[in-house]
């Protein structure tokens, strides 16, 4: 069977199980958009290519399947670099297809030519420039394989216009042959035993769970391990939902804006069981001072993460789920043989911290609206399995702190890159992947302005997401740093609460919109919003600009010097 390169590409995407592509056409990718008309694949036409990338990420976050985006050459390709980098940092499986000028004119500075493969090399797990239409099925198979196996990540396929037009003899390879790509899949029994042995003697162990748990679909295995041992669990920003927040053993989020107990438990631990986490600087604070007395068991699918920041006592390269399942077996048999140390003294220390330093804020009845109050109301009035997609800034930290994530894949955020503008398109992608769920975007006023135009996409495509703008009229997180570390010298952080008029703007984009200024209007408005299911909704919450995120570990400081912030009774 003869197919054009473009037909072969679309057919290959179908065979890889692609149900939706986020994208926007243009000159170089035109030939590929033609067979798309006849395909079963749903295409979602975005308003900016960055939106396509973040939607694909949101889709991947929520479903675990690779997100697919397709854009043209030159400026469209550069517009999608930010989502690629974001996905690279957070190990999100993406397959991005970019058009390219005809192969015959590459290198001549042709119209809308740019070196897409060169530009995206450092932000993709791998990328391909197709030079022959006969390679298309093979490269698409390789691309999906690389994106979704081992440590997942984004990949990019650059397809020149002439390659898309030329014809090829169709085939579908039954396997991929990448001699240099062999993700680890054997787990060393000896190391599992070593790990179980360390766990069996620890008096102050903590499970430090990272995003790898979610990537490996290991939440259940993690729960079994924790319950069997009674070891407390912290979930990093990338792992929120990997262990239920309402579980007794859950200490919540550690790190720069983690809660006091999670931070301090890591710091005081004698054993850290790091599962799919990478000792990110936002978690460790000053690395030399991090968990000074702890031995380390480090499990990661990526060998390069092991020993990158902190040298572990037991290094285990492998898929988190398989490793944890093996650990569960080893622990079970060890528990039968031996008496493990009593963790009651450790737990009583932990309970004291929890009692003395809970997350805390005060909402006065007629005072300005507190962002934490808004988030708690959203949480309490929305279904338990609501998916939350956040932007980057104070609102992100409050959302992570105050939401109760009891289900995996309900928290969609930009962790490693911290990309403002992530929330709205990521929420759209998540809703496309999980139409059965309520999806709330919790966004900042600054972030919202970066990608809000995708609400036009949401209206046009009938993707009924909900957006809560925590409008504090400031680039709040930057303002907080200027207040605390730059002697309250505020430089270029004021945005205005009224410019733009968020309600009018949202309405112009086809959404239903509300404005809330006072605490008593919060709950009724959220209820109204939750009842709307046929179009996107936006609520402009006017929140107190003075509110700061606490606890806080100042940049470069030791986690032992965490500033707990206000406490109900002034702490201890």
């Amino acid at each position, binding site marked *: 069977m003869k197919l054009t390169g473009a037909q072969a590409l679309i057919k290959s995407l179908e065979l890889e199980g692609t149900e939706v592509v986020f994208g926007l056409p243009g000159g170089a990718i035109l030939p590929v958009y033609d067979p798309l008309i006849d395909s079963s694949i749903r295409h979602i036409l975005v308003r900016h290519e960055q939106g396509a990338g973040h939607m694909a990420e949101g889709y991947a976050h929520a479903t675990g399947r690779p997100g697919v985006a397709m854009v043209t050459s030159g400026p469209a390709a550069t517009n999608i670099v930010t989502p690629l980098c974001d996905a690279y940092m957070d190990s999100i499986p993406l397959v991005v297809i970019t058009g390219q000028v005809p192969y015959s004119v590459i290198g001549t500075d042709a119209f809308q030519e740019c070196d897409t493969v060169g530009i995206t090399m450092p932000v993709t797990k*791998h990328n391909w420039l197709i030079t022959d239409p006969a390679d298309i099925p093979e490269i698409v198979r390789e691309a999906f394989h*690389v994106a979704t196996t081992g440590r997942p990540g984004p990949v990019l396929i650059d397809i020149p216009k002439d390659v898309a037009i030329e014809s090829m003899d169709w085939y579908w390879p039954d396997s991929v042959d990448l001699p*240099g790509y*062999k993700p680890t899949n054997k787990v060393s029994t000896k190391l599992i035993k070593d790990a179980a042995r360390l766990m069996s003697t620890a008096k102050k162990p903590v499970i430090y769970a990272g995003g790898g748990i979610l990537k490996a679909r290991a939440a259940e295995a993690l729960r079994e391990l924790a319950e069997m041992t009674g070891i407390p669990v912290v979930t990093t920003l990338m792992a929120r939902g990997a262990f239920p927040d309402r579980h007794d053993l859950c200490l919540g989020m550690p790190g720069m804006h983690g809660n006091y107990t999670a931070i301090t438990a890591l710091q005081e631990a004698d054993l850290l069981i790091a599962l799919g986490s990478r000792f990110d600087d936002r978690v460790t604070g000053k690395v030399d001072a991090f968990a000074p007395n702890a031995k380390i068991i480090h499990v990661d699918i990526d060998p390069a993460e*092991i*020993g990158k920041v902190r040298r572990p006592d037991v290094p285990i*390269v492998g898929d988190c789920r398989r490793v944890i399942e093996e650990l569960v077996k080893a622990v079970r048999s060890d528990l039968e043989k031996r008496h493990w140390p009593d963790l009651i003294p450790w737990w009583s220390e932990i309970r004291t911290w929890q009692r003395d330093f809970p997350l805390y804020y005060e909402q006065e009845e007629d005072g300005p609206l507190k962002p934490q109050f808004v988030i708690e109301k959203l949480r309490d009035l929305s279904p338990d399995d609501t998916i939350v997609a956040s932007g980057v800034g104070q609102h992100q930290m409050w959302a992570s702190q105050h939401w109760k994530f009891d289900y995996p894949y309900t928290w969609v955020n930009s962790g490693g890159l911290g990309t403002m503008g992530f929330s709205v398109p990521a929420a759209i992608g998540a809703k496309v992947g999980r139409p059965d769920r309520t999806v709330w975007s919790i966004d900042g006023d600054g972030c919202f302005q970066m990608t809000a135009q995708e609400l036009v996409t949401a209206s046009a495509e009938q993707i009924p997401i909900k957006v809560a703008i925590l409008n504090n009229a400031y680039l709040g997180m930057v303002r907080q740093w200027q207040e605390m570390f730059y002697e309250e010298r505020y430089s270029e952080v004021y945005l205005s609460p009224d410019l733009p008029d968020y309600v009018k703007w949202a309405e112009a984009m086809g959404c239903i919109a509300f404005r809330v200024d006072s605490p008593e209007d919060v709950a009724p408005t959220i209820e109204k919003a939750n009842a709307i299911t046929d179009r996107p909704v936006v609520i402009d919450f006017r929140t107190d600009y003075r509110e700061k995120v606490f606890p806080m570990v100042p940049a470069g400081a030791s986690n032992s010097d965490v500033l707990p912030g206000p406490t109900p009774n002034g702490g201890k």
Partner: protein
Amino acid sequence: MEQHHHILSVLVENKAGVLSRVAGLFTRRGYNIFSLAVSPTEDVRYSRMTVVVDGDSSPIEQVTKQLNKLIPVIEIRELAASDAVERELLIATVKASAEERSHLIDLVSIFDGQVIDVGVASVTVMVAGTPDGLDAVADLLAPYGISELQRTGRVALPRLIRGSRPLKAVKSSDQ
């Protein structure tokens, strides 16, 4: 340099862009390379890169692991200097008047070198040797006046073991 350098012998797929992937990785992660030589191998599907890395500024274990993550990288062998045979080629154009010429030729032949081109007032010489040896050659040529000098960067292969000492090989899965 000689104390702290590490030689990585990297077998890669012989495909467009592989060199820039490797070079880009070094730039992005802040690793320093002393030299890099790329050559075809006995098998046309592969090329071999011999990368000499500064072990002081670049954590060699990380360098190896990060390189291993590149899809076209098939295998990496880390060769300790003592486990490897290394050679490098130097060519230099040196001022040589008629009187000096025979001295210069004697000097070069001590190092098993050759004169490969002759001009009116200068000659171009070629010497192959160990990197240390070539440092010495360059020093000895300097007084004559070097107008141009180029070195290839080293190539290396593991020393053949006649006893049973295993090679120190690093592969991504050997954690």
